[in-house]
Structure formats: C-alpha cells, structure tokens
C-alpha cells in the first residue's frame, strides 16, 4: 500500500504541489515566528548579561513589586563607606544611567536633527574601571572633566556608541549639543565606545548594544548634566576571587543600614541644600543584590516585551495554519472525489475499505512530512530575511546565529503533519464507503455528509458562538473570562458560519454573479452557474479568504473606531493651540523642563502672543493607592482649564486642598466610584521610596483619554517625583494674538529640541490618524500573508475543477466558445467565489470588530465607527484576488486541445 501511496503522489504532482505549498507556507510562518523570537529572546538574554556586566553585587534602592521604573537613585553620601577597603571587595563602580539623553547632529540640509532609535537613549558615566566598566573605547579617548557645568562657558566632553556615531555621522573632535532632561548643553565628542563586557577589552570588534543610543560623560559631569547631583543610580561591586559572597553582602548591607539610620536621625539638622537632595530618601531602603538577581530581573523585563512580540507573531502564524488547513481539507476532498473510480478499482481487486482509507491517510502523512521539512527551511530563510530587514531599517541589531531549537521543529512537525492528517480524516472516512462496483460506473461520486445535518450542526455552533459573543459584549466580566468568551464566541461563530456557508453559497453566488452575467453574457452566466453548482466546494474554497478578510475587516473596524474615539476626545477635551511632545506612543519619552520654562519666559515677554503654557509629566505606576500602582500625570492645575476640558463632572480643577493635605488631585469617575471618592475626600498614597502623602479630591473628571485617571499639580511632582521629565507641553495663545506670529515665536524656542514635534490641533489629529493608519497597515500586511495562502487555495480548487470539467470545456470549445470567452468564464467564476468569501469575511469581521470594541476599555474605543469605504475596498481586493487566482487555471483551460478534451474520459 505504501508504494502505491508514493506512486499516487508522484503521479499527481501538480495537485499535490499546490496542496503542499499551502502547508509549507503555514509551517513557514509558524517556524519563522519561533526562529525570530528565539533570536530576539537570545539577544535580550545576552543583553541582560551584558547590562549586568562583570559585577558580582549591585547596590541600589529597593522598590516594591512592579515599580522598577520608579527606582530611586542612591545618595552618594550613603555609600561613602563602600570601598575596596571592605575585605573581599575588589572594585566599586558608581553607575549613572539616565534616559532621554539625545545627541543632536546637523543633518544633510544643515538643520539640527535628533538621533532616533527604537532602543532607549541612555546617558551614562564613563568610569574606565578595568573590571566593571561596560563601555570601552573603540576610537579616541575617554571623556575628561573640563569644569562645572554651572559655568555657562564650560564645554564638557562626551563619548558616543559606535553605531549611533556611524549611523548619524558624528565625528570625533567636533562639538555637539546633547539634549537631556536637565536641558541642552554643548559637549565635545572625544571618543567612540563599544557597549559590552570588559572581556572585550583588547579585542573590540563588536558593539553588543542591540539598539540603544549611549552617550557617556565623566562622573561629575554626568551627575550634573543628568540630574544626579550627589546621587548614583547604582553601585557595581566586584569581589576578589577568594571572597565569601554572603559575608561580603552582609557586611555591605550593614554599612548601608547604618548610613540610612544616620541619615534619618540627622535629616532635620542638615543644611537646606543637602536636605533638598536627601529628603526623598528618608523612607527609602538601600539593598545589595547579586548579579544573578539583576540579570534575572532584566531578563524578565525583556521577556515581557519579547513575549508580546512572540504572541503577536504566533497569532498570525496560527491564522496562516488554520487557513492552510481549510485548503488542504478542500483539496483532499476534491482529489479523492476525482479518484473514486480508481479507488473503487482497488476495492474490486480486493483492497478492504480500511486499507483504502489508510492509504489516503498515509498520503496525508507523506505530504505533511515533506511540507514540514520544506516549511522549516522556508521559515528559517524567512526569519533570516526579516532579521536583515529589521537591521536594514535600523530597527535594531540582532547578531548571532538564528537558533534552531528542538521545540521549533517539534511544534512545526506536529502542526504541519497534524493539520494535514486532520484535514484528510473526513475525506478518508468517506473513501471507505466506496463500493467496488463504482469502478464500473461512469459518474461515480463520493457521498458527502448530508447538508441537512450540516446546517443543523452549523446553526447550533453559530448560535452558541453568537451567544458567547453577546455575553462578552454585554455582561461585566473580568479580563480572562471576557477574552475567553469573546475568543470562543468568535471561533464558534466562524465555525458555525463555515458549516452553514454551503447553504448560502448558491443564492449568494447567484446574487454576486447576476451583474457579471449582465455584462459578460454567456461566459458570465456559466461562471455564475459553475460557482453555484457545487456550493460545498465553493464555500470551502472561499473559507480561507473568509478567515483572512474577517481579520482584516476586524482590524479596520477596531482601528477606525479607535481613530474616531481619539478624534472625538481631541475635539471634546483639547482647547490649547499648540502641542509639543517627544513621542506620543511612548509615555516614558520625556524632555527637559527647560523648554516649558523658556516658554513661560516667552509668555512673560510677549503677553500679546502666549497666554499660558502647561507641562505634563507622567509617573507610570508612580503612586500606590489602595495597594495598586496608579499611572499619574501632573499639570499646572491653575491654568489647565484653558488647555484641556477634562469634562469635570463635579468640583473644580482649581479647587483648594483641605488643610493638612499635600495638594489636590483630579480623579476620573471610574476609580472614584471604585474607591468611593467624592469632592473633598482624601486619598492616601505612597510614592516611590516609601514617601506617604495625602491629597484632596478637587474634581471628578469624565475624560481620561488625554491625561488618564489621576491628575496632580506640577508642584506635587516637583516634590515627590522630581526626576519625572516633561511628557508633553501645551501652549495657549493670547486670544488677540496673530496665530502665525505666536507659532513662529514658540518654534524659535522649540528649535533647540529637534527631538520634539510641534503641532497644532489639526496637525496632532492628522499625525495621530497617520500613526494609527500605519499600525493598521502593518497589521494588514501580516494578515495579508494569510490572504496569499487563500489565493493559492482558490487557484488549487479551480485547477482541480477544470480538470474535472475537461469534457464540458471541450464541448464548449467545439460548439464555438472562443479561448477568450473560456478564460473569461473561469476568471469570473473565481471572482464570484472570492467575492462570496469576501462578503462573508467582511460581515464576520464587522461582527467580531463590534465584539472587540466591547472588550476594549472605553478610554481607547468608545465610539463605533465602521469604515464602509475601506470595507468596500477590501471586497474589491478580494475580487481582484479571485482574478489573480484564476490566471493559471484559466490559461490552462483555454489551452486544452478540443479533440483531447472531448475524448477525455
């Protein structure tokens, strides 16, 4: 039997080639997802090790769970006793690591421009410590201390990582402006550095940083420039080879605790200047941890990012596999249907039904295996290609071999072979019932499962799916059951509609085909009839396209609604004339408060142009209230009303704080309800470092789209989160001001910060829409991959149908159908099938879109907007896909030799 199976496959190469291709593509996408995310994960794992470097212990401020963003620095005074004098300590390197440090260069047009990267823009101190430094000189020399930055004439020195320098054309010896959260400052570039472990000293041939922009300064300059005066972010400690790690850790911890106790006891006695620096640390804890701990923490942080990426890629790959499974199943059904006589001959020669059925399954195993192998190879190549793309578009660096894990191979094999074999189960079971006498009959057919039963089962499944969807949309569920009910509902609805679709295939194909018939007369009519005559096949062929279009439409509906919601929020809440921001989609991207200060000066200077400026600062998880870290924002509450309408439900944004509290807060209605807050209630919260504070609720707001749920005054941030940079700034012109003149005046100031975007309301709306469109485009491209497989499916079915209909085509040609008419007939049949799939897909996509909108928090999507024109365009595209799918089968059909075709048995 096995030899016969192989013969069958090798004899019907074309049919199987197309089937195999579908599986190959599915497995390729799946394995690419694994290959690529494995590579990315490895890179970040390596990076986690590199970031830690060769330290053995790290000294740092303690934070609660999930607050790592808000880790406080360590006062230098408290670590004076941590030196190499401690037995077992070989070296100590104080480290400064600040974000949002942006070197500015002059671009080709002579304009100042900011370096851009998807990685962080870091500012560091260059210690030059032989064992602990992570930076080593590739070119030039280390930065030296020139003088205090307090002297405005001081031009300090800095070094830059090699990739940033080469990408943007920085040259050693030149002077550049570096923009940090403390302001802009000139520095001379004295050297280029690699980021990596000191192991690379002496063989500096690799920059291990995957995408960060690293500027480094001498320690004193770094402290001044990066807002760390008298502070370090961490201290790295390396131990002597004979040291007892636990003992040294205990020793260090004891010294730290003593220093902290000292600080607390004499805090009030400190001179004002020192008090200002040290006050935030009164409640802080300073700890010492091992390298293993920090590496593991970094790894987990990165893992979260990589997991998101990996899940997204996997989701796309699974879609591709599902689509392929439809195609394989359909192909098996058709091919076996065409081979009924041959299989019956086997039966009449004495093969049992079971043997015939087994041979069919064996075919599936062989195809699945071949396709898996090819798919793995294809996936590896695709991953290598994608990595090349990522590196080329400067997304990041992913050095090293692409890892081939046994897991990848096993999953690919299970999915590839599994999907193929599963798809063949139905057809192989039906094959069993072929009677031997069918070999002698002219019109032998496989008996398909009854349509009535199918409709029955389909209805039940679809109704269950819709019910689950409805439940998810209306009932108040927690995230997990919500996603489960929506996901399960979507799957159920889809399977139900798939089972039901043959029942509507005939009327729908007729409906779609009617206009085509009007234009193309006989070929059009035949195309319509052909599409409608095998509803099961039409439905199965279209299913692959349906899946793809449902997903694309879903994305379109959701993103359009998001856009509508955003525009609405913008229209409703934004009153200011100008926005200045670093990166609208990265809440940690910030810039210097100097900009807002300069704009305030402008306002004071030219009250005829600028009325007021508000700076917004973000503290992600910056305040713990009721045991939960809340994302908080600060603004200048005194003038906020002129800039934003936060839809105050109750109270006033300028309401005053109760006596004894530390300021006012505006709270969104949702958390206010959860925590039973009203006007005048107090909120107790804990800031990073353990500082407690109490706030008075001044207003309940209904709009959280712009500033989130918790809005504080700028003074609160100055006191408790002084390091939080400005996230964006808004400007309101004086009512009588000439808009153009006012904007020119503002831009004269913002020109010094080329990393920032300056936009008025209309521009902000347009650029946000553009960003959302871009996101949608990326998603659509990924989903488009599954459409590509769907096109293959239509081609495959059509080719097989034509093969089946050879005699009919010959007859048509004999009685006078031209080749062109024949091609037209095949082409429009494909278009009708594709449009059928498209219609179902778009309808389902809209349904799923509504479900998804119900599931997404209102902050993101509140308004339902269905992009009718875009969906119509998708339909057109699906019709075009049908046309593309028909190219090959139509040509084949038109080239049939008339005589051979008529005589064809």
């Amino acid at each position, binding site marked *: 039997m096995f030899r016969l199976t192989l013969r069958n496959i090798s004899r019907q190469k074309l049919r199987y080639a197309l089937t195999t291709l579908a599986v190959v593509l599915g497995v390729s996408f799946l394995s690419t997802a694994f290959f690529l995310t494995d590579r990315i994960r490895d890179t970040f794992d390596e990076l986690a090790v590199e970031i830690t470097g060769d330290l053995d212990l790290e000294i740092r401020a303690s934070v609660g769970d999930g607050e790592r963003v808000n880790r406080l620095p360590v006062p230098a005074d408290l670590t004076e006793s941590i030196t190499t004098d401690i037995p077992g300590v070989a070296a100590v390197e104080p480290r400064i690591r600040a974000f949002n440090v942006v070197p500015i260069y002059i671009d080709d047009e002579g304009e100042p421009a900011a370096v851009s990267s998807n990685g962080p823009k870091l500012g560091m101190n260059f210690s030059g410590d032989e064992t602990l430094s992570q930076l080593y000189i590739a070119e030039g020399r280390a930065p030296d201390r020139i003088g205090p930055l307090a002297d405005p004439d001081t031009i300090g020195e800095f070094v830059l990582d090699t990739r940033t320098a080469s990408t943007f054309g920085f040259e050693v010896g030149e002077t550049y402006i570096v923009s940090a959260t403390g302001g802009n400052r000139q520095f001379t570039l004295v050297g280029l550095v690699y980021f990596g472990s000191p192991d690379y000293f002496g063989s500096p041939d690799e920059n291990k940083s995957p995408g960060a922009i690293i500027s480094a300064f001498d320690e004193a300059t770094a402290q001044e420039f990066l807002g760390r005066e008298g502070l370090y972010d961490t201290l790295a400690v390396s131990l002597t080879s004979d040291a007892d790690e636990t003992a040294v850790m205990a020793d260090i911890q004891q010294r730290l605790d003593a220093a902290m106790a000292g600080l607390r006891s004499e805090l009030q006695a400190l001179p004002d200047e020192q008090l200002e620096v040290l006050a935030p640390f009164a409640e802080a804890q300073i700890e010492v941890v091992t390298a293993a701990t920090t590496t593991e923490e970094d790894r987990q942080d990165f893992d979260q990012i990589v997991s998101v990426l990996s899940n997204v890629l996997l989701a796309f790959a699974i879609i591709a596999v599902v689509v392929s499974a439809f195609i394989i199943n359909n192909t098996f059904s058709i091919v076996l249907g065409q081979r009924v006589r041959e299989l019956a001959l086997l039966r009449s020669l004495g093969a049992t039904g079971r043997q015939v059925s087994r041979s069919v399954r064996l075919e599936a195993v062989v195809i699945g295996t071949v396709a898996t192998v090819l798919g793995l190879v294809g996936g590896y190549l695709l991953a290598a290609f994608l990595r090349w793309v990522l590196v080329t578009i400067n997304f990041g660096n992913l050095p090293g071999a692409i890892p081939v894990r046994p897991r990848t191979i096993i999953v690919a094999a299970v999915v590839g072979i599994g999907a193929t074999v599963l798809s063949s189960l139905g057809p192989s079971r039906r094959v069993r019932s072929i009677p031997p006498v069918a070999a002698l009959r002219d019109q032998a057919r496989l008996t398909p499962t009854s349509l009535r039963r199918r409709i029955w089962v389909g209805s039940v499944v679809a109704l269950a799916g819709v019910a689950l969807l409805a439940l998810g949309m209306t009932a108040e569920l927690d995230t997990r059951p919500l996603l489960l009910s929506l996901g399960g509902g979507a799957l159920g609805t889809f399977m139900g509609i798939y089972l039901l679709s043959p029942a509507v295939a005939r009327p729908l194909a007729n409906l779609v085909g009617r206009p085509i018939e009007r234009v193309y*007369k*006989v070929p059009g*009519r*035949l195309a319509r*009839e*052909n599409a409608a*005559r095998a509803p099961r096949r039409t439905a199965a062929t279209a299913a692959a396209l349906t899946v793809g279009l449902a997903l694309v439409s879903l994305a379109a509906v959701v993103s359009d609604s998001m856009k509508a919601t955003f525009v609405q929020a913008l229209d409703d809440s934004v009153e200011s004339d100008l926005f200045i921001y670093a990166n609208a989609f990265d809440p940690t991207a910030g810039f210097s408060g100097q900009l807002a200060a300069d704009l305030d000066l402008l306002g004071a200077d030219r009250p005829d142009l600028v009325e007021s400026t508000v700076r917004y600062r973000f503290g992600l998880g910056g305040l713990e209230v009721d045991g939960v870290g809340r994302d908080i924002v600060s603004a200048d509450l005194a003038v906020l009303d002129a800039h934003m309408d936060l839809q105050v439900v109750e109270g006033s944004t300028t309401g005053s704080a109760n006596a004894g509290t530390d300021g006012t807060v505006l709270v969104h209605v949702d958390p206010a309800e959860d925590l039973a807050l009203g006007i005048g209630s107090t909120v107790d919260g804990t800031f990073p470092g353990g500082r407690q504070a109490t706030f008075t609720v001044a207003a309940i707001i209904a709009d959280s789209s712009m500033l989130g749920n918790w809005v504080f005054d700028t003074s609160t941030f100055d006191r408790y989160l002084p390091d939080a940079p400005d996230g964006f700034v808004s400007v309101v012109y004086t009512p009588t001001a000439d808009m153009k003149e006012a904007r020119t005046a503002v831009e004269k100031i913002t020109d010094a910060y080329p990393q920032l975007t300056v936009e008025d309301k209309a521009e902000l709306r347009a650029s946000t829409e553009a960003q959302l469109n871009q996101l949608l485009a990326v998603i659509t491209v990924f989903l488009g991959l599954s459409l590509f497989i769907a096109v293959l499916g239509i081609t495959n079915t059509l080719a097989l149908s034509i093969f089946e209909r050879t*005699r*009919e085509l010959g*007859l*048509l*040609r*004999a*009685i*006078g*159908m*031209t*080749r*062109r*008419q024949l091609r037209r007939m095949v082409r429009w049949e494909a278009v009708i099938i594709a449009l059928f799939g498209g219609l179902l897909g778009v309808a389902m996509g809209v349904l799923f879109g509504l479900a998804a909108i119900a599931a997404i928090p209102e902050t993101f999507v509140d308004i339902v907007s269905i992009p009718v024109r875009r969906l119509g365009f998708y339909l057109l595209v699906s019709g075009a896909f049908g046309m593309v799918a028909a190219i090959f089968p139509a040509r084949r059909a038109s080239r049939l030799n*008339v*005589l051979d075709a*008529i005589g064809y048995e």
Partner: protein
Amino acid sequence: MADGTKVYGAGDTEVRALDGVSVGFEAGRFTAIMGPSGSGKSTLMHCVAGLDDLSSGSVFIGDTELGSLSDRDLTLLRRDKVGFVFQSFNLIPTLTAAENLTLPLDLAGRKPDQDWMESLVTSLGIGDRLRHRPDELSGGQQQRVAIGRALVGRPSIVFADEPTGNLDSTTGGEVLDFLRRAVDDLDQTMVMVTHDAGAAATAHTVLFLGDGKIVSEMADPTADGILDRVKQIGG
C-alpha cells in the same frame, strides 16, 4: 477536402490516419461515413469540421480554407457555420435545455430567430422540457436538444459523431428520422460518422473508409446493401 493527409507519430510508429483523401459533401445531402475502428472516419470528420488540422492537403467549408485560419477564426467558423452532435455528453450540465439549445447563438451574441426556434422545438418534441436541466432529461431527449443546438444557427454543415451510439434502437431510430428530415425538409447538409449499418442507411450516400482511404461509395443505401459492402471490403 482535397488530398487530405493526417499523420500521427513519426518513423516506425507513424500512423497515416488519412492518406490522401479527397472528398466533397454536397449541399443539402445526408452523407454517412462508415468504416471499421481505426479506418480514419473520426479523423476525417474532425479535420473537415475544423476540430483538427491536416498534415497536408486542404479543407474548404464554402469558400473558406480552414488550414489558413487562426484558432480564433476556426472557433468562430465552428460557431457560425458548423453544427455538432456528439455520441454523448452533448449538453452543458449547468444550463437548461433551452439555454443549451441557443448556446452557439448566445456565444456569438446573436438573437435566435423566434419562428425558427419554435418550429425546431416543435418538430423535436421537446417543448415541455425546455426549462429542465440535462440530468432531468432522458438520453433521447438530450440528443434531440443537441440536434436542435446543431441546427439552431442554420450552419452550412452539421457533423454527427455516432449520434445514436448511446441510445436504444427505438430512440435511436427517432433521432435518425429527425436528422433525415432536417436534410429533406430544411435542406440541411449533414455528415454522420457511424458503424451501424442501420443508421447509415438513413443517409443519401455512404462513404466507406479503410486504412485512411475512401475505399467505396454507395448511393441510396439499404442496411443489407451496406452490410454486404462491408463484408466485401473488410473481408
């Protein structure tokens, strides 16, 4: 057809299906072509009907020389000037009887002549079956629709390839009757390939083919006469 030769294969495997055949089919006459399997009768019909091309020689339908025509022109010629009736599978399964009937005209984008249609339908006796699809028709009804289709465009010539091969003798007889009447009453030129002497006897003239050559011809044949002649030739 003038000096028509059709060669399949080359060298040792060369088969001369037609070997210098010259033949004309008179307008308004019913000609039957007979011969044993492999005698070239089907090839002759295919070449004359423009379904196949000759290795050498030429074929004319009216004044048109087929060898010089492109595939498109050949197709149009078949559509407008030639009618076909095959042994089986004559109808497109997705179209109704009426739609099958007018298919050549529809393909050409021409309107059928209503009177002509009606008289055809009446004489074929398929008036009540027009809305049915082929799988709802009997074999004889299917063949009658096929004949109607062959005649509907008033072609110069109709070719019938074993039109009764798949029918029982009664139904076959009706079909043959109708073919003959089409020639007598409608002045239609008809060429029929068959190996059934009874069927051939319906024709005005019978041509006998053997080994790619016309070996004999018989006018106003009877079934017995044909059988005798077949015995003489074939031995």
